[in-house]
């Protein structure tokens, strides 16, 4: 297997972008990444997008978007894994370079979520849950995560305030991120008193609806060194992917994320690293409880201890292991298919030392964790500054 | 060959609305309605309940008491004036939910409030003819009264189910009659949402003529007299009518009380006298005779004489008692919630 590096990163406009279509957003991000890499040709393209069919009535994105860049003819693959579509697009691109099928791959993720009504958006997202066993009976995403929250609170004594602190922390980080969708700081009281969505989760426990696209350019390490322009070269040291049963009722334990644990083990093994080696992480905080469950599953803290990580400051900027320095899905935004790629954009920015006010000091090894639905698919990447 | 009831079951929704709640909204005097109709509160089906759901639950309870294999059921009749579909039977859903298998004659019936007893009449006759081993008859309704109309105070929801057979009976059917004329006392035209009624014309020339007519037919056919019965139950559109019919027919109040549920249940339409019968079966003893006369506007009455067997003591406890469902676990709703649940609020397009 060959070594793979990230040589370019880019983001489109991010938020409620009324005047940009899916194609336009994607092209913005793709060009930004290509320009950052100083490249104008690629061997292959991957596109992560959860459900452009339901959002904008458009499938066949690989071919459509390659043409948008004037690159018709280049092989292009759309991948889907619900909210982990971006992470899987990254893994797919990584695999093509590692296997020698391509030297340069443009990895992208995109989601255009505001061309539908709120109800239609909710219904589209619900397709990540089990349509016949969960959604048919009235389950919503916040509802499913709320049940996991209740189970975690019952088992470990995690408190409502600890959930809220995850949102507070991530907003504090997002305030330092010029690209974040929501840059205002919030308090625990704000979170708890905001509108109830599914008990105990309120609207401020939930990540927003966001339009956006993200892109990274991967290159075989040797090629990367020739175009580095003196910047630190970021290498993908490890990748891990795993699945779990989709419906919550099928899981043995509602307080853990086995797919995340498995994916992380596989990534750590490939990278020759342990959780203690990680300096910072971008994880999938689609809901506040998700971040708590994920950091336990990754081994960044002990089982049951996830609740006090944000409230103690351990996972805040300046803490022992900053989690979601970008503001996470909560504050930065969550254009579903783009998120997994945007996480890689953030870690790369951090490892290059150009994250400005939200820079994690001494960042050399970072981790991204991207998951779909209530954790039934997960992909973990470990990124490291190459020597 | 004897024919009769092998298993019975009733379902009454948990929610109730008090007449005072309804009267307050329409500027009516609650006490006048309560006295005049002898009604205090009525059952309200939740938005997730309908004639089909109630029929399924009542039928499952009948099956629990019957202790038969559902595949031995050869006919399923659901009588209602509030079938969820105008075209597509309620009965097929009930049959499918019970697991009868496909060898079933199935029909939905309508005859205003006597659609339930109508199914019982047919079920009994089909078993008697030897055509089927067991036949299921259900009377269920979630009928509506127009907002502010007198019927809104009484229109309620409930279901009763009876499995008929010729062996292991809990009650033998000693006689069945039907008395019918064309009498337009209460009706609903196709595509109209609420029924209409002819005021006082619904009394003597309609309800009383047919219930008393059927009662006379039954007594003549069997040679029995009111004193030979432990219990009698009549169609109960309100609290007053069944008591008056019973008295005129020669029954004492004590014979009428066990089956008299309407003051606290309302008028369950096709479920009315059938549910009343289940309440009687919950406490009747071997040898007791029961007279049951239904009434459906349009108009007609089905009448039955039942003789309780000792098997009833073995199976009675296999499903919830009717009185228990009526009296316990009630959830009261406001008129606003009632109107929302019953689809009486004009929603956005």
């Amino acid at each position, binding site marked *: 297997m060959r070594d793979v590096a990230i040589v370019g990163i880019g983001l489109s406009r991010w938020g409620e972008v009324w005047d940009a279509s899916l194609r336009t957003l994607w092209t913005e991000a793709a060009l930004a990444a290509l320009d950052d890499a100083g490249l104008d040709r690629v061997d292959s393209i991957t596109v992560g997008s959860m459900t452009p069919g339901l959002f904008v009535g458009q499938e066949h994105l690989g071919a459509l978007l390659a043409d948008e860049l004037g690159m018709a003819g280049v092989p292009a693959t759309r991948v889907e894994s619900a909210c982990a579509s971006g992470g899987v697009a990254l893994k797919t691109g990584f695999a093509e370079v590692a296997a020698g099928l391509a030297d340069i791959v443009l990895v992208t993720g995109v989601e255009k979520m505001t061309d539908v009504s709120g109800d239609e958006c909710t219904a589209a997202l619900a397709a990540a849950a089990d349509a*016949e066993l969960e*959604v*048919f*009976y009235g389950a*919503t995403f916040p509802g499913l995560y709320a049940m996991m929250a209740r189970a975690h609170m019952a088992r470990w004594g995690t408190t409502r305030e600890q959930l809220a602190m995850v949102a507070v922390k991530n907003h504090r980080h997002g305030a330092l991120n010029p690209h974040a969708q929501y840059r205002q700081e919030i308090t625990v009281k704000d979170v708890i008193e905001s509108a109830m969505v599914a008990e105990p989760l309120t609207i401020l426990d939930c990540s927003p609806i966001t339009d956006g696209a993200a892109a990274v350019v991967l290159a075989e390490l040797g090629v990367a060194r020739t175009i580095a322009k003196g910047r630190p070269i970021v290498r993908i040291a490890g990748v891990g992917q795993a699945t779990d049963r989709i419906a919550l009722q099928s899981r043995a334990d509602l307080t853990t994320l086995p797919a995340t644990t498995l994916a992380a083990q596989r990534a750590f093994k490939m990278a020759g690293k342990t959780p203690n080696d990680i300096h910072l992480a971008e994880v999938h905080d689609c809901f506040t409880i998700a971040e708590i469950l994920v950091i336990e599953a990754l081994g960044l803290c002990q089982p049951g201890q996830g609740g006090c990580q944000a409230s103690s400051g351990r996972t805040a900027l300046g803490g022992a292991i900053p989690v979601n320095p970008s503001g996470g899905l909560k504050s930065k935004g969550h254009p579903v298919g783009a998120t997994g790629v945007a996480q890689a954009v953030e870690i790369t920015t951090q490892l290059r030392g150009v994250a400005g006010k939200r820079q994690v000091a001494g960042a050399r090894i970072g981790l991204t964790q991207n998951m779909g639905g209530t954790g039934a698919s997960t992909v973990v990447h470990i990124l490291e500054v190459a020597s | 060959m004897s024919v009769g009831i092998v298993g019975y079951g009733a379902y009454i929704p948990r929610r109730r609305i008090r007449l005072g709640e309804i009267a307050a909204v329409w500027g009516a005097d609650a006490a006048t309605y309560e006295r005049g109709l002898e009604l205090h509160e009525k059952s309200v089906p939740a938005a997730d309940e*309908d004639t089909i759901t109630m029929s399924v639950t009542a039928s499952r309870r009948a099956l629990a008491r019957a202790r038969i294999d559902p595949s031995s059921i050869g006919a399923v009749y659901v009588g209602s004036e509030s079938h969820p579909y105008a075209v597509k039977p309620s009965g097929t859903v009930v049959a499918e939910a019970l697991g009868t298998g496909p060898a079933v004659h199935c029909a939905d019936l309508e005859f205003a409030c006597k659609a339930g007893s109508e199914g019982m009449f047919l079920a009994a006759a089909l078993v008697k003819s030897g055509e089927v081993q067991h036949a299921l008859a259900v009377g269920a309704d979630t009928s509506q009264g127009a907002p502010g109309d007198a019927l809104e105070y009484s229109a309620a929801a409930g279901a009763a189910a009876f499995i008929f057979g010729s062996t292991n009976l809990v009650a033998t059917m000693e006689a069945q009659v039907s008395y019918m004329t064309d009498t337009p006392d209460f009706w609903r035209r196709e595509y109209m949402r609420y029924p209409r009624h002819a005021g006082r014309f619904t009394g003597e020339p309609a309800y009383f003529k047919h219930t008393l007519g059927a009662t006379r037919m039954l007594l003549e056919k069997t040679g029995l007299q009111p004193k030979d019965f432990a219990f009698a139950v009549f169609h109960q559109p309100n609290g007053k009518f069944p008591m008056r019919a019973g008295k005129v027919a020669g029954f004492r109040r004590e014979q009428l009380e066990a089956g008299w549920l309407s003051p606290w249940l309302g008028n369950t339409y096709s479920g009315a006298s059938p549910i009343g019968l289940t309440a009687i079966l919950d406490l009747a003893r071997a040898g007791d005779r029961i007279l049951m006369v239904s009434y459906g506007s349009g108009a007609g009455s089905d009448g039955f004489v039942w003789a309780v067997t000792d098997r009833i003591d073995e199976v009675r406890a296999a499903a919830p008692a009717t009185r228990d469902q009526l009296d316990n676990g009630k959830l009261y709703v406001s008129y606003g919630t009632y109107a929302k649940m019953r689809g009486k609020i004009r929603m956005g397009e």
Partner: protein
Amino acid sequence: MSPLNPARVAREFPSRYRLEAARCEGCGVVSFPPRVVCPACRGRKFATASLEPEGKVLTWTVIHVGPSSHKHEVPYALAVVELADGVRITCQIADLDPAQVAPGLPVRLEFRRIQEDGEAGVIAYGHKAVPA
């Protein structure tokens, strides 16, 4: 594309109407609804089993912002309920103030309307849990 397409709805009747499950002949694990491959032992032979309707609440939430199919039912309690044989289902808790739902609550499954395709489309029936 309607989730209440008649063919799609009718296919689920054995499990949604009669609680029919599949017991793996290899390892005895009961899958509900029935499936082709056993999730425990990957066996492919099953016997039909009928689930008993009694169970208890494992975890729950109260949904205040519902999907359009359930918009006017909010707030409603949604729970993961455990039946006998270790079978778990996701369902609403009906006929109970949502504030009174708690883990361990004994429930019974009852036949109810789950969804309908507008005023003119198909009605989809299934089970909800009511306090036992």
